[in-house]
C-alpha cells in the first residue's frame, strides 16, 4: 500500500485508500503471479480459495453507477445489485480476475454465473450449489459440495489442497473474525470514536485484501482507534438489517440524521464475521456449520419458527439499539419476504422498524433522510416533552 503515500501508522487512511481502489492490491498480487478469484455471495468459503494458494476477492458493485451495458444482457426487472456488478465486469473494471465463483444463494445470483461465464470467459469458473433448507441431508449435500469445489480448484491449481492448508486458512480468517468482532464491541462502547461509515469501510477493505494482511491491518486499527478521544455525540443507536450494503453512503445518511448503526445484520457486515469456523470436528464440518447451517442469510429457509429473527433480536438487545432500519434492494425476494414478519416480531419486542427500499442508487437520498429523521424523532419520542412543557407553561 506504500504506493498510496500514507504515512506509516495511519491505519484508517490505509482503509480509505483500499476502499478508493479496491482492486489495487489484487492487481499487485496478480503481477506477482498470484491467481485472483472473484466471488459473489458468501457460501463458497473463501478459505478454500486461499488454501489453494489463490487470492479470494469479493466482487462488489458501485452504488449509483450508471448501468447501461448490463441492461442489454439482463432484464431490468432483475436484482439491481447483480446488474451493477456485471456492469463492472463489462466495463473492464474486473479484468484482473482469473476466476469467478458464484454460489446459488438466490436465483438472480445463480443466473448471472452462466451469463458472466459465457460473455466474460474467465479462466476458472465454479457455480457452488447451496441447498435452500437446513436438514441433515442438505448438510451432507453441502459438505459434498465443499469437496467438489475443492477438487475443482485443485484441478485449476494443478496441485492438491490438503486439509491442513484449509485449516490454516480458516485459522487466519477466524482471526479476522475475532478482531472484527472486537471492533464491533469497541464501537458499541464508544460509537463516537469509530463511525459507522468507517466500520463498514474496514469490512469492505477486508474483502479486498488477503486475510493475513487484513489481520495486520485490524491490529493496527485497534491500536489507532483506542487512542482516539471520545466526542460528545448523542446519536440514536440503530441496527441495520438488509440485502447487500457495500457502500458507506447509507451509513453516512443515517449519521447525518442523528442516528448511528452500531450493529448490522448484512452480509458485508456481521453475518460474514460473527460465525467462527469450528475446527474441532474437521474442516468440512466446521465450514458447513459456519457457511450453511448457521449463516443467517434469509435465502435459506429454516422452516417454521423464528431462528433467524431471534438472531436479529439478540443483536438488537446485545448492542442496545433503539430501533431497526431495514434496507432492501428492488426484487430481493429473500429479504422482502422476511420483512413483514420480521417487522412484526421486532415490534412485538419493542423495536420499531423502518424499511428503505432502493434500486442500489440511493438517488432519492432526500426522501430517505426525511424517513430516517422522522424515525429517529419517533424513537426519541420528542413530542412528549412538548406536552409537558405546554402544560407547565400554562400554569
Amino acid at each position, binding site marked *: 500500500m506504500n504506493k498510496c503515500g500514507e504515512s506509516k501508522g495511519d491505519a484508517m487512511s490505509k482503509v480509505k485508500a483500499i476502499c478508493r481502489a479496491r482492486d489495487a492490491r489484487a492487481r499487485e498480487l496478480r503481477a506477482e503471479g498470484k491467481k485472483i478469484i472473484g466471488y459473489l455471495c458468501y457460501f463458497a468459503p473463501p478459505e478454500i480459495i486461499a488454501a489453494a494458494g489463490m487470492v479470494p476477492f469479493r466482487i462488489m458493485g458501485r452504488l449509483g453507477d450508471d448501468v447501461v451495458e448490463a441492461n442489454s444482457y439482463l432484464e431490468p426487472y432483475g436484482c439491481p445489485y447483480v446488474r451493477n456488478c456485471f456492469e463492472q465486469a463489462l466495463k473492464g473494471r474486473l479484468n484482473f480476475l482469473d476466476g469467478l465463483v458464484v454460489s446459488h444463494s438466490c436465483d438472480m445470483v445463480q443466473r448471472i454465473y452462466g451469463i458472466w461465464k459465457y460473455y466474460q470467459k474467465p479462466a476458472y469458473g465454479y457455480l457452488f450449489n447451496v441447498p435452500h433448507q437446513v436438514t441433515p441431508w442438505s448438510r451432507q449435500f453441502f459438505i459434498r459440495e465443499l469437496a467438489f469445489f475443492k477438487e475443482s480448484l485443485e484441478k485449476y491449481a494443478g496441485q492438491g489442497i490438503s486439509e491442513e492448508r484449509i485449516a490454516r486458512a480458516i485459522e487466519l480468517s477466524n482471526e479476522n473474525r475475532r478482531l472484527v468482532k472486537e471492533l464491533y464491541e469497541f464501537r458499541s462502547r464508544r460509537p463516537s470514536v469509530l463511525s459507522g461509515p468507517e466500520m463498514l469501510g474496514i469490512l469492505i477493505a477486508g474483502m479486498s485484501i488477503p486475510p493475513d494482511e487484513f489481520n495486520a491491518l485490524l491490529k493496527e486499527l485497534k491500536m489507532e482507534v483506542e487512542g482516539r478521544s471520545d466526542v460528545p455525540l448523542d446519536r440514536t443507536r440503530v441496527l441495520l438489517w438488509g440485502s447487500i450494503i457495500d457502500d458507506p453512503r447509507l451509513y453516512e445518511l443515517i449519521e447525518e440524521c442523528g442516528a448511528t448503526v452500531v450493529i448490522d445484520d448484512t452480509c458485508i457486515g456481521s453475518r460474514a464475521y460473527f460465525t467462527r469456523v469450528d475446527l474441532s470436528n474437521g474442516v468440512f464440518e466446521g465450514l458447513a456449520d459456519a457457511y450453511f447451517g448457521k449463516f443467517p442469510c434469509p435465502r435459506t429457509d429454516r422452516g417454521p419458527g423464528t431462528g433467524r429473527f431471534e438472531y436479529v433480536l439478540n443483536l438488537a438487545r446485545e448492542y442496545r439499539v433503539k430501533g431497526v432500519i431495514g434496507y432492501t434492494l428492488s426484487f430481493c425476494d429473500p429479504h422482502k419476504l422476511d420483512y413483514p414478519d420480521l417487522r412484526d416480531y421486532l415490534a412485538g419486542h419493542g423495536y420499531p422498524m423502518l424499511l428503505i*427500499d432502493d434500486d442500489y442508487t440511493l438517488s432519492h437520498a432526500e426522501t430517505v433522510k426525511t*424517513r430516517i*429523521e422522522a424515525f429517529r*424523532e*419517533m424513537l426519541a419520542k420528542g*413530542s412528549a416533552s412538548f406536552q409537558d412543557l405546554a402544560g407547565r407553561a400554562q400554569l
Partner: protein
Amino acid sequence: MEYVAGVDSGSTTTKLVVLRDGELAGQYVVSTGANSRRAFEKAFERALEHLKVHPFQIKFVVSTGYGRAGIHLANRTVSEITCHARGVRWLFPSAEVIIDIGGQDFKVIRLDKGGRVVDFAMNDKCAAGTGRYLELMGRVFEMDLETFGRAGGTGLEAVEIANVCTVFAETEVIAHISRGTEETKIIAGIFNAVAKRVHSLAKQLIMEAREIVFTGGVAKNAGIVGALERMLGQAVKVPFEPQITGALGAALFAWEDIIRRSQYESGI
C-alpha cells in the same frame, strides 16, 4: 411579545407560519420555484411586512420539508413527518391518522393517543398520485387546478383508470377522451386512482382510525377529498388551510424551544 416561525420548504410551495406568544399570527405560502432559499426569503419578507416586525424579533426558526437544510435562518430542523403530526394535533386534538399529499410526495402518519408518531409510510421516488400528477392531468383537460378539482361531478360515475403512473395514465385518459367518454367520468376516475394509491400504500396505518385528517396542497381538491372518503368509508377532516400544517408544526416546535430556554434561564 415573542415571535417564532416555522418554515416548510416543499418541492412546489414554501410555507411560513409565524406564532405570536404561541398563537397563530400569520401564514404565508409562496411558490418554491427553482430556488428554495429565495422562496423562503420572499415568504419571510412578506411576514415581516404583514406583521410589522423586525427580523431580530423572530426569536427562533424551525425548518422542515424537502429543502429544510437550505434554510439559512433556521435554528433547528425537524422532519416533516413529526411537524405534520405536531401541527395537525394542534388543530385537531384527537386526530389519529394524517394523510398528506403534497407536490411530489405523499405520506400517511399514524398517531397514538398522546399525538406521538407511531408509524408512517411515504411514497418512494415515483411521484404518481401527487400534486404534480394532478397538475399534469388538469393540463390535459385545459383546466386550472381549482376548476379541475370540481370537474369530477359527484364522483359516483367514474371510469376505471388503472394506472397512476403519470405517463401511462395520460395515455389512458387520452384514450378515454378519444372514445368520447364524458369528461366528468374521466376526471372522477383520475381522483379515484389517487385515492386508491394512498389507500394501497397505507391500508394498515389507516385501519380503524376514528379521526382522519387530510392535509397538503392536494387536500384543497374537493374531488380527491370525496374520492378518499368513499374509498375509506368514512369522513376525513380538512384544515382551513391544509398546506400549512407542516410549517405550523415547525413553528410550534420553535415555540417549545423558546419556552424550554426561558425555563432553563429562570431555573425551572
